[in-house]
Every structure is written in structure tokens, then in C-alpha cells.
């Protein structure tokens, strides 16, 4: 009965919410421009701000938060931490109970769902009032919904690029990848790099480590032959498009033909990035944030990156993910102002430079991007920053992203695990995803 009890508890919370929210709605819709932010000339107003941090300081930077606290002594800051895994559940019940933090960050795609439910504050007026658009890359608008409202501020952008292990390439006498590579070039080279070094009939060195996830795995592959996942309006699934199927077939073939290790191998190796870093796979689609782990645990590894390969139609697709900060729509206006004050600080060159140096993600502030650490591996940071500029796309995020992705993912696991033919699997995914999209119209 544990789950039903939790449901019950959640239900209880909402009753108290509906009871006390009726009186408050007028207050929270106050025009943010009218209440204003503290001016330098006036004595700063005392404010309270509750910041929610999933995954605690591993993913943000303590320096930035400390810097904010030092700069704004008038804002009494309270930090609530929770591990990533539990955060979704925790925040859901807190949102229902109206006790969520004033500001927190979560996966960007989830935030679009918050926007459509009215949980997230629309940040468009704040941005218009206080930010100079020219200072930021387009990634600033990663949380823009189709209705034009912006529901979040990126914590930083995490694009994907092709990482290669230099030593494995030179040992095999194969030329290094370039920004002009196509998927076919990559597959052909991966074949040359796959080897059975101890002669037991099974390869123990692979050309490419395929990921089963969305961003580094099936999403870029589905689009590699010119296919699509959702259509432009994000209301129609395109998984049975022959080009999408062809892309997924190429992805599944990586494991089928033995160019890429299977799930069991990767599990034992500790994931794609570890297989790559321990010289067991020569290439993989690397998310920018992977470098922090690789550089920490495999400091001597000689590797670099190039931009994502071009698709069969000559077009490049660079999937980006971001976690975004949201301001809770039911927070008091004071707290919202304080939260925006925090976000303004977060987007300042000072804080964004801290983010750039941390290597955790690409900042959205243009000046800070020039401060990416070019001495730390991978040295070619342009593979990421240029990649975003040329071809950065989200993984077809829309308000029901979480739901349709959850519906599709297990089937993709079976396709890559060779349990399901790509054609059949894509048909099943098409049905499931379309159903989700229709239900959320």
C-alpha cells in the first residue's frame, strides 16, 4: 500500500493548496515590472529566497551561489538540496502542496510541461526588461514554448560532439576525424578500429560506443539519414518515416556488426564514457559535461573532439540538453523578484565565467564562452560551441516530452539490444508516442 499512501498524502497536500490558493491568485499575478527590482540608489529591500538544488553542488557551482549570497546581503537565502533521483518525486508533491522552492532547476524538457500547467513563471517580461539579447547565444531561449513564453533560464548548455581517442587512432594508423565527416565516414573508420587483440574470437577493442539514451544515442541517429522524430509542430510522431528507420537501423547495426559493444559489456565497463576513456572504444558521442568526469578519473587520456558528423543529407544535427532554472509561479512576488535577481547574477559575465571554467556546461553568455578552458582536454572546445551555433537542436522538447520519451525508451533499449527489428520497433514506438501526443493535445 506504500504507493497508494503516497498518492493519498499527495492528494491531501493539494486540498490544503486549493484551500489557501484562492485568496492568493490576485497577488501572484501582479505585474513584475510594477513592483520593480531594488535600485542602487534606494536602500535594498529585505527579501527571502528559497533555492532548490537537485544533485546539490555537483552540478551547479557552489562559487556562484556563494558569490550571490555575498553580493546580496539583503536577500536571505535558504538552500534545499535533494539527490537527482528523488527530486522529481519531491518537487511534484511540493508543487501540489504549494511548498516548492521559489526557484529550482530541472531538465529543460520537464519545464515546458510545468509551463503548460502554470507551475513555471513566464520569464519573458523579466528578460525584456533586464537582459541585453545581444550578450547571449540563442540557447538562452531553450525553454521557450510554442506560445512564445519562456519558462526557464538555462543552467548551461550541454551539447554533443564526436570524441575520439588519439592513441587508438595512431596505433591503428587511421587518420583522425574532421568536422567534415559524415556518419558513413565514422562507421567506416570505426570498422577499422574494431579489433580482437587477444584472439578469443570476440572483439575487445571497439570502434564506437553506442549509447542507448536519447541525446547521445538514438536521437542523433534517427536524424542521421535525414529522418525526424517529431514533426515541426511537435504534435506528430515521425518514427516510421523511412529515413528515421534507416537511421535507427544504422544505430542498431553498430551492435549487430560488432563495431560497438553491447549493453552487458558497457555495464561492466561502467558506461560509454568509461569504455572510451579506458581505451576500449575509440569514439563515442560525448556530452560536454562528460569531460569533467573523464578529466578527473582519466587525467592522462589523450583525446579530443570534432563536431557531430554530417547526416546523409549533408545537414548536421547537434543535440543539446540543458537543465533550466524555473521560478515558481505561486511564490510571493518578493521571492520572485529575489529569484530574478539571482538569475540576473547567474547570467552575468562574472558567474558565467565561473561556469565556463568549471567545464560542467557551455555558458549562454557570449563573453564567458571565450573563457572555456582550452588547455584542458578536449582542447577543441569549438566542436561544442560551434556545434551549438551551427546546428544546435533540443531533442524535440514539448510539454509532453517526459511522457513520450518514457513510452519510447524501453523499445529503443530492445532495438539496440537486438531483441526487436528496427522496423517493427519503430512501428511500436510510433503508435505509443502518437497516442501520448494525442492525449496531450
Amino acid at each position, binding site marked *: 500500500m506504500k504507493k497508494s499512501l503516497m498518492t493519498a498524502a499527495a492528494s491531501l497536500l493539494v486540498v490544503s493548496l486549493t484551500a489557501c490558493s484562492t485568496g492568493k491568485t490576485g497577488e501572484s499575478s501582479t505585474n513584475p515590472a510594477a513592483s520593480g527590482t531594488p535600485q542602487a540608489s534606494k536602500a535594498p529591500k529585505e527579501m527571502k529566497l528559497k533555492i532548490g538544488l537537485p544533485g546539490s553542488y555537483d552540478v551547479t557551482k557552489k562559487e556562484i551561489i556563494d558569490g550571490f549570497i555575498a553580493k546580496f546581503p539583503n536577500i536571505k537565502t535558504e538552500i534545499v538540496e535533494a539527490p537527482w533521483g528523488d527530486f522529481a518525486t519531491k518537487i511534484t508533491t511540493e508543487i501540489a502542496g504549494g511548498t516548492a522552492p521559489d526557484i529550482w532547476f530541472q531538465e529543460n524538457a520537464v519545464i515546458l510541461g510545468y509551463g503548460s*500547467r502554470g507551475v513555471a513563471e513566464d520569464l519573458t517580461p523579466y528578460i525584456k526588461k533586464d537582459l541585453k539579447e545581444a550578450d547571449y547565444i540563442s540557447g538562452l531561449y531553450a525553454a521557450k514554448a510554442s506560445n512564445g513564453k519562456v519558462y526557464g533560464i538555462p543552467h548551461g548548455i550541454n551539447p554533443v560532439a564526436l570524441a575520439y581517442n588519439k592513441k587508438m587512432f595512431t596505433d591503428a594508423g587511421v587518420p583522425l576525424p574532421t568536422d567534415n565527416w559524415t556518419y558513413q565516414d565514422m562507421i567506416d573508420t570505426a570498422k577499422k578500429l574494431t579489433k580482437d587483440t587477444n584472439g578469443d574470437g570476440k572483439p575487445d577493442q571497439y570502434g564506437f560506443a553506442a549509447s542507448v539514451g536519447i541525446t547521445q544515442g538514438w536521437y542523433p541517429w534517427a536524424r542521421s539519414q535525414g529522418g525526424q522524430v517529431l514533426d515541426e509542430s511537435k504534435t506528430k510522431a515521425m518514427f516510421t518515416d523511412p529515413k528515421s528507420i534507416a537511421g535507427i537501423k544504422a544505430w542498431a547495426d553498430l551492435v549487430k556488426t560488432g563495431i560497438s559493444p553491447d549493453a552487458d559489456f558497457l555495464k561492466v565497463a561502467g558506461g560509454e564514457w568509461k569504455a572510451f576513456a579506458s581505451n576500449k572504444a575509440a569514439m563515442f558521442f560525448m556530452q560536454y559535461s562528460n569531460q569533467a568526469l573523464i578529466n578527473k578519473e582519466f587525467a592522462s587520456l589523450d583525446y579530443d573532439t570534432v563536431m557531430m558528423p554530417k547526416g546523409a543529407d549533408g545537414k548536421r544535427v547537434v543535440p543539446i540538453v540543458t537543465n533550466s532554472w524555473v521560478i515558481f509561479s505561486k511564490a510571493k512576488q518578493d521571492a520572485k523578484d529575489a529569484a530574478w535577481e539571482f538569475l540576473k547574477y547567474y547570467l552575468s559575465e562574472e558567474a558565467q565565467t565561473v561556469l565556463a571554467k568549471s567545464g560542467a556546461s557551455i555558458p549562454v553568455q557570449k563573453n564567458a564562452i571565450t573563457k572555456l578552458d582550452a588547455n584542458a582536454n578536449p582542447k577543441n572546445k569549438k566542436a561544442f560551441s560551434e556545434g551549438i551555433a551551427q546546428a544546435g537542436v533540443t531533442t524535440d522538447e514539448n510539454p509532453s516530452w517526459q511522457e513520450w520519451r518514457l513510452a519510447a525508451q524501453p523499445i529503443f533499449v530492445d532495438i539496440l539490444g537486438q531483441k526487436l527489428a528496427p522496423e517493427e520497433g519503430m512501428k511500436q514506438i510510433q503508435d505509443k508516442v502518437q497516442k501520448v501526443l494525442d492525449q496531450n493535445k
Partner: protein
Amino acid sequence: MRNEARWGYLLTLPFSLNLLVFFAFPFFFSLYLTFTQWDMFNAPDWIGGRNWSRLIQDASFWYSLRNILLFAAIFVPLQTILALVLAYFLNQSIRGKSFYRMLYFLPVVTPWLAGGTMWGWLLNKTYGMVNYMLTSLSLPPVDWLDSKQWWLPITSVALVNVWKGVGSSMVILLAAIQGVPKDLYEAASLEGANRWSVFWRIVFPLVSPMIFLVLVLSTISAFQAFDVFLVMFDSPNVVPDSKVTPNILIYKDAFLTTKMGYASAMSWALFIVILAVTLVQKRFEKRWVHYE
């Protein structure tokens, strides 16, 4: 008299309030929610029977019921029989009795995360110890947790669940067996009864109410299996239909995609199934359970 009644109500008030607020209210509220669409933020929208008609067409939900029925069919009898046998033997005067009792109880106190992770490794297709032993006996390796045949992973998980749960059932049954009066054994041995008939004629009938209790409890827990599946099939959010349980679906809809109405409908459907199974067990109770 009236005064006494007033005191009675007053003194039971904390309990009654607890019952009303935390059990009765959520119970009926979730029933109401099954007829609504509720995102836990805005007020629930009345949508009539749409959640229920969706439930009937929802293949994932039917798969989850199929999985959980097989899981219960393997887990419940196996665990109960094993617990009874263990309890019977551990009640005898054998060497190192308390050591064995501890050994069988150890998995109960092991956290699922640790136990499940260990079994995940043992049953890994390519690198697991179990398949290593099979291949060294020249038997083919088995894909325990990831087979195309849906029943195999469910069976594996049911067996792991027996490993985890047998200790607690055993303790209940051991206590019951220890309650069997000594003079009955003495009388039986005077009559020249062997161990087998002592067990069937004396021990079993006397502890049968406890066995019934263990059966009902483990059936209910089987239908609510959640953590065992999540830990064994490693990605909580992406369990495929062939390995899903109703509680995982309920969790996903309630907390990951905030469809509380539909999650409530699934909870109620699960409640009805458990109620039906328990009633069937209750019906057969008279045939074999013996109350003094």
C-alpha cells in the same frame, strides 16, 4: 452514561482523526480522482469514465497484470513452503540453530538496493556467476533478466524475491511452531508416530492459521511489487512492458508525468484485483485452516 460516551469519543479522537484524515479521506478522494484529470497543480477536471475506458484499452496495464500474476503464482507458494520447511527444521534441536536462523533472516534486513544489485551481477548474461557455473557444466548460458521470453525475467525476479522475503515468513511460522504444546509431541511419540505424520497431523493443523496469514500477506505484497523490479531491471523510468508491474505504472503516471487521475484509476483497478484474489483465498480457508 452520556458522560462516559463523551469520554470514550474524546479518548479515541486521535485515532479516529488519524483514520479519517489519512485513510478514509484519501481513499474516497482517490476514487473521485479516477473520474478526473488532475495535474496536481490546477483543480481536477471531471472527465467521467474516460480514465476507466482508457485503462481497459491500455496494453501496458494488462501486461503489468499478467506479469504480476505470474510473479505472485511463483513467489507466494514457493516462499510459504520454503519458510514452513525452514521453520520446521530450525525448531528441531540441531547444531548452530541460531546461526542458521540468522543466515536465513539476513536478506530481510539487507537493503533492496544492495541485494538487488548483487543479484543483478550474479544473473548477468555475459559476466554473471550463475551463467559461469552453467557454462562450466557445459550448459548453455541463460539470459535471466533480459530474455525475449517474458516469463523468464519475471521468474528470476520472483526467485530473488523469495531469497529476500523467506526469512520474515519463516520467523512468523517459527513462532507458531514453537507454540505447539510439548505434550502433543510426547503423546505422538508414545503412539509411535513418525516425523512425517507428526508434521502433517499435529504441526501443520496447529500452525495453519499462521500459514494462511503468511499466504495472504505475501500475496498482497506480491501484487504491490515495486522496488524488486526497479532494482533488478536497473532503469526505473524505462522498464519495458514485458517487465512492468502495476505499481511502476502508477508511480510513473503519478510522479513523473503527473497524471493523477489515471494513476488513481490504476490504483483502484489494482485494489480490486487484490481484493478479488484475497476473497478467493478466504473462500478456500475453511478447507484447510484449522482453528482451535
